[in-house]
């Protein structure tokens, strides 16, 4: 296998001291930026761009990429410990990570996120070195029509994530769609629902809404110290990860990694949508779907594997075709240009050594992250033993700075506060918050791609069944919706068998 000899050469090159240091610097910054609520990978990579470029050559890109995949590890920390998504792709980790931390299993949850991130990273990296060229060309087959079908498929998957009251779940989903419409309509041009505010012109930033809706709401609910202190009794065992969790979640890890990889490689979809699909798939496939959302270890495994896998996959179109598929990779592309490289199909041919050395640094960086985060886990988990009256002011302070840093304006904090208050009302009235963020992430993609398809086809709906990928996805969608019914029937049959064998 030629790729592996190239890869080993790359790893050897990436093990040079300057590159090694640049990688370490990148992953540490990435961990921090991921963990800080508000600041996410795209803002983080952009902020660090000038510093990284000054390192020159391979170290520059090793550092930039390190920030990106490092933030995927870091995002889980705040999600689990405080219920605040550290960055958009860790929203789904809140669902089960935060309940686990409240049950005194913070270390276990953090440990799972590290294993999942590592496995997801590993599978993503194997895909990156072996499949990058064919998968990049395959990704190009996804035009607006296929994206529309994929989004409808995604929505059918995630429909399991509603709450007890299905109607209120759909209302929350619709509200998320509506929030996603705020700002300049990118297809036809009018400005929607901004009420004249300049700050809303570019739309509402997802991480700001997530910080408010999950983080501030969670904190509002636990301001009463006497009510919550009972949960935070010190237990040494709660600080440490458990290896056997990784074994019991192996299918979810694999599923999350693969989902993350294939969704992440598509330009314009991104890691956040990938985590949502991975989480929903995990819940769909599970024998105990009712445990999801209450602190179920598999609920951390799938999305955390997915976001790391997706972060590597999203670099594939950049390195093989010169296509930046996300805000983060667009900044990395600017970095390549500043270094005097020409991102495009010839990059591998003209600068093969460079790319393989950068890929090599990913493997080293992934290992570094595992050791760093495993070592840090007990210390991070012990954050929960700080008294609320000290901890929450600190967290609010980080949010204030972190949200400001997203777009250098205080309007983000206002939106976060509004989202926090609305989140509290929704939660108390039994409107589930998850469909709202799903709507906010998937809604704009669905709307834009449907409208793009309709412009292309001049309003002809037949394109959705004429194109094979779209048709296949629609058939999958129908299967997903029909699956519970099929399983119900199969379940009765196997129960019957069980009874037969018991009696026999």
């Amino acid at each position, binding site marked *: 296998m030629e790729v592996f000899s190239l890869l080993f050469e790359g790893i050897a090159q990436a093990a040079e001291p300057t590159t090694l240091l640049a990688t370490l610097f990148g992953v540490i910054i990435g961990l921090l930026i991921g963990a800080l609520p508000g600041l996410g990978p795209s*803002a983080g*990579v*952009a*902020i660090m*761009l*000038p510093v990284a470029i000054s390192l020159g050559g391979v170290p520059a890109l090793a550092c930039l990429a390190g920030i990106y995949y490092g933030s995927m590890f870091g995002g889980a920390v705040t999600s689990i410990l405080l219920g605040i998504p550290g960055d958009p792709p860790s929203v789904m980790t809140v669902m089960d990570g935060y309940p686990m931390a409240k049950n005194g299993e913070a270390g276990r949850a953090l440990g799972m996120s590290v294993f999942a991130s590592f496995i997801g990273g590993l599978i993503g990296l194997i895909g990156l070195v072996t499949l990058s060229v064919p998968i990049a060309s395959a*990704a*190009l*087959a*996804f*035009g*607006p*029509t296929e994206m529309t079908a994929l989004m409808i498929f995604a929505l059918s998957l995630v429909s399991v994530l509603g709450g007890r009251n299905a109607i209120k779940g759909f209302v929350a989903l619709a509200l998320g769609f509506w929030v996603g419409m705020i700002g*300049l*309509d*990118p*297809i*036809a*041009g*009018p*400005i929607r629902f*901004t009420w004249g505010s*300049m*700050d809303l*012109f*570019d739309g509402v930033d997802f991480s700001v809404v997530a910080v408010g809706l999950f983080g501030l709401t969670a904190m509002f609910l636990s301001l009463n110290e006497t009510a919550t202190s009972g949960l935070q009794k010190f237990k040494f065992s709660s600080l440490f990860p458990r290896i056997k969790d990784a074994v019991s979640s192996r299918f979810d890890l694999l599923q999350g990694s693969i989902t993350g990889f294939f969704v992440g490689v598509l*330009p*314009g979809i991104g890691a956040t949508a990938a985590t949502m699909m991975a989480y929903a798939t995990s819940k769909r496939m599970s024998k105990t779907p009712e445990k999801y959302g209450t602190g179920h270890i598999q609920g951390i495994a799938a999305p955390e594997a997915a976001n790391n896998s997706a972060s590597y996959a999203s670099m594939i*179109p950049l390195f093989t*075709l*010169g*296509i*930046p*598929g*996300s*805000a983060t*990779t*667009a*900044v990395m*592309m*600017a*970095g390549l*240009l*500043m270094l*005097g490289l*020409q*991102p*495009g*199909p*010839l*990059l591998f041919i003209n600068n093969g050594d460079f790319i393989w050395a950068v890929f090599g640094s990913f493997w080293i960086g992934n290992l570094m992250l595992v050791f760093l985060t495993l070592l840090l886990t007990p210390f991070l988990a012990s954050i929960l033993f700080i008294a609320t009256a000290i901890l929450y002011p600190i967290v609010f302070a980080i949010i204030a700075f972190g949200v400001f840093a997203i*777009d*250098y*304006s205080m*309007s983000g904090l206002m939106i976060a506060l509004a989202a926090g208050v609305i989140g509290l009302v929704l939660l108390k009235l039994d409107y589930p918050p998850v469909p709202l963020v799903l709507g906010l992430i998937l809604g704009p993609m669905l709307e*834009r791609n449907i409208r*793009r398809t309709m*412009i*292309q086809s*001049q309003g002809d709906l037949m394109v959705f069944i004429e194109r094979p990928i779209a048709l296949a996805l629609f058939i999958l969608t129908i299967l997903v919706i029909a699956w519970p019914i099929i399983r119900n029937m199969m379940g009765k049959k196997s129960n019957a068998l069980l009874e037969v064998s018991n009696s026999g």
Partner: protein
Amino acid sequence: MKRFAKSGAVLGASLLALGATTAPIFAQDYPSRDIEMIIPFGVGGGSDVLARTIASVIGEKELLPVQILPENRPGGSGAVGYGYVGQQQGNDHLIATVSVSFFTTPLLGASPVSYEDFTPLAAISYSPYVLAVPTSSPYESVDDLAEVDRLTTATVGVVSDAALLADMLTDSAGVQIDAVPFDGEGEALAAILGGHVDIVFMNPSELLAQTEAGTLRPLAVSSAERVEAFPDVPTFTELGHDIEHVQLRGLVMPGGVSEEVVDYWEGILEEVATSDEWREQYIETYYDSPAYLNSEEFAALIEQTNDRYRAIMEEQGLI
């Protein structure tokens, strides 16, 4: 004031003698403090790179006795940053670069300022647009495109230079071109490479890697003259289409700035435009075309661009 007049006269005389434009007429009085350079977009984007490169070239060549301090003020599609600059009428220590949003956001009525609130200083290069099709496409020339009834093109944003050029080509070649707006250059590039649209108009820096690799085929350029990076690609004018539209890289100040300040900056920017540093750090990296336009020429082109955007937006019923 007396000192100013005197030194001005002395320098003016030497200026005439040298025939150069670089010597500042009132060096002792202006600039009196550091220059604020506002970038109305985020870090790492095209506008950010442009502005910071200009600032670093001016710094390296020591053209100013003070520093240029670049500062990002993103938000509102440029409305926040341009609003900050345009509302400080007469502040001659404040500069910004122009971009598409400089025109379009005010036209949509979403900005507190418009192009009339700014003083154009000079333009130092421009980026042409290249019309390209996938290599697998049956279209070999612009004439081939004129033969079909309908084409689609990928643009970034509803009102953009690419949409404008598609509109111009529609009028000139008599073919219906529907613009499909995408969320960023990457998605637009993926759409053309995947064959989901027929044609694109893109900057040379976005296209060159693809044309070199043989995935896209360039058919025409939108500038008045051929482009260095694509010497064999004809201009639209050569092909008999009256299409000429480029993206100017230039600097503006708030309105109400004195003539002297404009002259001073024209001198500095002319040096930037003709410097090796600018050529190496920007023109060659991003395949721009070198050009220098003084404040009057630049102002005329700003007005022309604004009129073109207004026309296309009125056509689409946006304003």
